[in-house]
């Protein structure tokens, strides 16, 4: 796999919930070392697309390529085995557990008798937070309930990168944050890209998008309406695509996966 091959590539992903067509032949890609923004209005299918990648729910048709190989993701474990981690909008942290316990949730270090190895987990957690320059958390043994919104988001992001992940997906990471905390999280997102990870950031907030992203994929009503380079575009152009963009391919006319790559 060379550097121009996308780390993750989605081809013609289609998903419907009953009669609602949530995704209609959507293509998507992200490369290593790049922050790709995924934007669109409410109901554009951003969250659905992410959930397909994360294995939260399946997709009806289309294919997913990871490092150039076709993969099948049937559950969150499949996704994390590939190195895909998602930081959800609702944070997906357990308030009643402390920072270490949340960082290792579902992947606790344990011995043959299922006994937890707390010292190792605590030490690794401290290291990860340090490597991401998350310095505002006093104690990794603090319950998450006592943390501020920005700190919680930092923990959620750190949890995602802890696992030698290659792709980190952030769903509205700044939605509930104040100005200072937003900047803190956006800096963290940029740092992830600089450290060589592939990052996908979903956001309503174009300020956040233009602050962090290298490229921007726009969805509208479950379809692709364009991919923009941040360097070569303006917020106005992106807003226009979000609100009135025309689909880049029309279902039924573009014949399947063979030419799907050309759509971008």
């Amino acid at each position, binding site marked *: 796999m060379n550097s121009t091959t996308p780390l993750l590539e989605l081809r013609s992903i289609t998903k419907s919930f009953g009669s609602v067509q949530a995704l209609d032949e959507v293509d998507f890609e992200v490369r290593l070392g790049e922050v790709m923004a995924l934007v669109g209005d409410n109901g554009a299918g951003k969250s659905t697309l992410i959930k397909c990648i*994360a294995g939260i729910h399946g997709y009806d048709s289309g294919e997913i390529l990871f490092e150039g190989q076709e993969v099948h993701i049937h*559950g*969150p*474990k499949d996704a*994390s085995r590939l190195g895909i981690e*998602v930081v*959800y909008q*609702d*944070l*997906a*942290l*357990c*308030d*009643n*557990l402390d920072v270490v*316990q949340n960082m290792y*949730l*579902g*992947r*606790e270090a*344990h011995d043959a*008798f*299922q*006994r*937890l190895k*707390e*010292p*190792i987990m*605590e*030490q690794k957690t*401290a*290291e*990860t*937070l*340090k*490597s*991401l320059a*998350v*310095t505002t*958390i*006093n*104690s*990794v*043994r*603090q*319950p998450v*309930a*006592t*943390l*501020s*919104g920005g700190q*919680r988001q930092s923990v959620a992001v750190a949890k995602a*990168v*802890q696992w*030698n*992940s*290659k792709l980190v997906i952030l769903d509205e990471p700044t939605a509930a944050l104040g100005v200072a905390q937003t900047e803190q999280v956006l800096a963290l997102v940029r740092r992830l890209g600089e*450290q*060589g*990870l592939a990052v996908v950031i979903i956001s309503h907030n174009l300020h956040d998008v233009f602050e962090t992203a290298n490229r921007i994929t726009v969805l509208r009503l479950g379809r692709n309406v364009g991919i923009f380079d941040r360097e070569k575009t303006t917020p106005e152009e992106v807003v226009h695509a979000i609100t009135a963009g025309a689909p880049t391919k029309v279902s039924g006319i573009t014949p399947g996966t063979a030419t799907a790559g050309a759509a971008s």
Partner: protein
Amino acid sequence: MSTAEAVSPPAAPVDEEPRGFAGLYRRAMDNLKSGNLGVLPIVIGIIFIVVFFSFKATNFFTANNFVNIIIQMAGTAMLAYGVVFVLLLGEIDLSISYVAGIGALTVAELQLPGSGHEINGLLAMLCAIGICAVIGFAQGSIVARVGVPSFVVTLAGYLIWQGVILQRLEQPGSIIIQDRWINYTASYFFSDQAGWLIAALITGLYAVVVIGGVVGKRRAGVAVRSPGLVVAKLVGVGVAAFGTVAICNHAKVPHGLPLAGVLVVIALVVLTFLAKRTTFGRHVYAVGGNAEASRRAGINVPRIRILVFVLSSSMAAVGGIILAANVNSVDLNFGGGTLLLNSIAAAVIGGVSLFGGRGEVRGAFLGALVIATVSNGLNTAGYATGIIYEVTGIILLLAVTLDTIARRLQIRSGR
């Protein structure tokens, strides 16, 4: 990938914790903020209750009565341990009192001389626990896989298992338990020497575990929080163990440390270990705190739910056996009365939240101790049963009110 490379050599915890008193204070504040009141309120409550009844009834504060209280709390404590896990999930198990009845009925049936299926008492107890585990598995599966609310499933269980007990015992009215192994669970008392040995063993094992933990942390370069607290805990456990044995050895009738008390402590240790030191326990807390987050983290949530219901039914069987052994029989009314509500109340009084995710096994131990002490004290002081219920109710209300206030504090301080 990058985190692995960017990592500095080990032993650089981000947290520079204040030591000594300041550290303790901050931990306490953190706990309070997250809605954990700890065991302090209940320990104060127990001291208050003991002092109160010592003045009220002349034969309350005696060694004999101390042994009585241990035996009286044993059955309820065992059931309450199971309740803790169910409540941690944010579920409820209303069937435990009659599942305990099924456990008791099973051992009684299997030890019945001349019944043709008479087996060794120890084996009978294992069978009883096994049968109840299957009951728990069935109930848990309906909750976790089908999605029927646990309240309804276990309410149905409450009726069904009560029905089974009534059906079996309608004719004889009761079955006498003669097997000595079964009866030992409530009526075996260790000799003085054996009692001391057990106290030494408990203290020693606890010391090994605690010191082992400290060594492990040191080795990993992780800060050891409040060494003073570690020493205080060690001393506390030692004093409690030897103190209990000393008092039991002072009692005239029954004399010595009761096996029931030792079983309660063993279950406490094993289940605390399960809850706090294993992946299973961690996942129970996680599912109770945020089931969706747990699912997304790859935890098999239905499996955890089912296992918890298996555990709660199994503990109910253990408690049921001890309760039956205490009266040497199983009768028509077994599992009725206040057993169910006392067991749940014990867990709740002990600080286990009904909303899930917060609480500890030792809370059920302390809660069962409170309930047994209050009812014993009121009995000894000559109050009627009505008063006992009223007082237990008031204590329960106080405990839940405290829990709710703690939770509101958490919401205010969090986020």
